[in-house]
């Protein structure tokens, strides 16, 4: 059986990539997708640990995480739609109406 470090490293890689995407991409949709990627990394961890502990709790939490991801995607995309309708842009560094 594979040692769990493989999964941890994989999820760490995906997590880092996702963080990079969230921090650097201008497109809000890509940011959201990167967030999804991060959540996936988390899921990998959870499932791997549940596998290694022989209990499904990790998978349960993974399910909750997916639920959360679904809700977050729905609301986030709704916000993006509304914003695009008003501002004609999806670039994060043009959404600075909260400044000072």
């Amino acid at each position: 059986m594979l040692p769990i470090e493989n999964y941890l490293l994989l999820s760490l890689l995906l997590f880092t990539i996702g963080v990079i995407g969230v921090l650097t991409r201008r497109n809000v949709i890509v940011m959201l997708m990167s967030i999804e990627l991060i959540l996936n990394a988390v899921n990998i961890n959870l499932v791997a640990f549940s596998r290694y502990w022989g209990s499904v709790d990790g998978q349960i939490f993974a399910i909750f995480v997916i639920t959360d991801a679904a809700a977050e995607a729905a609301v986030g995309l709704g916000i993006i739609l509304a914003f695009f309708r008003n501002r004609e842009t999806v670039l994060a560094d043009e959404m600075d109406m909260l400044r000072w």
Partner: protein
Amino acid sequence: MLNAALFYFFAALAVVSAIAMVTRRNIVHAAVFLITALLATAGIFLQLQAQFLFVVQIILYVGGIMVLFIFVIMLVNLDVSLHLVQFNRQRFVAGVLAVILGVQVLGAFWVGRGSLKLGAARAMEPKNTEAVGQALFQQYMLPFEIASILLLVAMIGAVVMAKRRV
């Protein structure tokens, strides 16, 4: 042997497509690569004998959320956005910081390497779906309900947000 091969295949696929997703200029391509990454993740779940989660991952993530993403992308897609700079001003700092963060987590693994004594994985009981269902509807009933309420609220919020005249 086959198990390891599957894992490495899926892992490589996931990492590569994730990198591609972050770097692609075309949003639709990025979405496609994310789908690939998610599918690879699903494969890893399968390889971890979490069949139910494997299916849920595909149905919910790939079949639901990503469809929604592509949907919105097609609604808001602007050809001009293809020719814009895809990365913001803080890209270098941010990249470096993210890498530092990853390295730190890695260091955390390294520091805690001794404490992770799992030994060999115990065999999951074959009826994975039933097990998940049992746990979900008995042990984790309340979180389940809360999650359902969360979904309801999210749905209403999304509808209100996306309505023509907010």
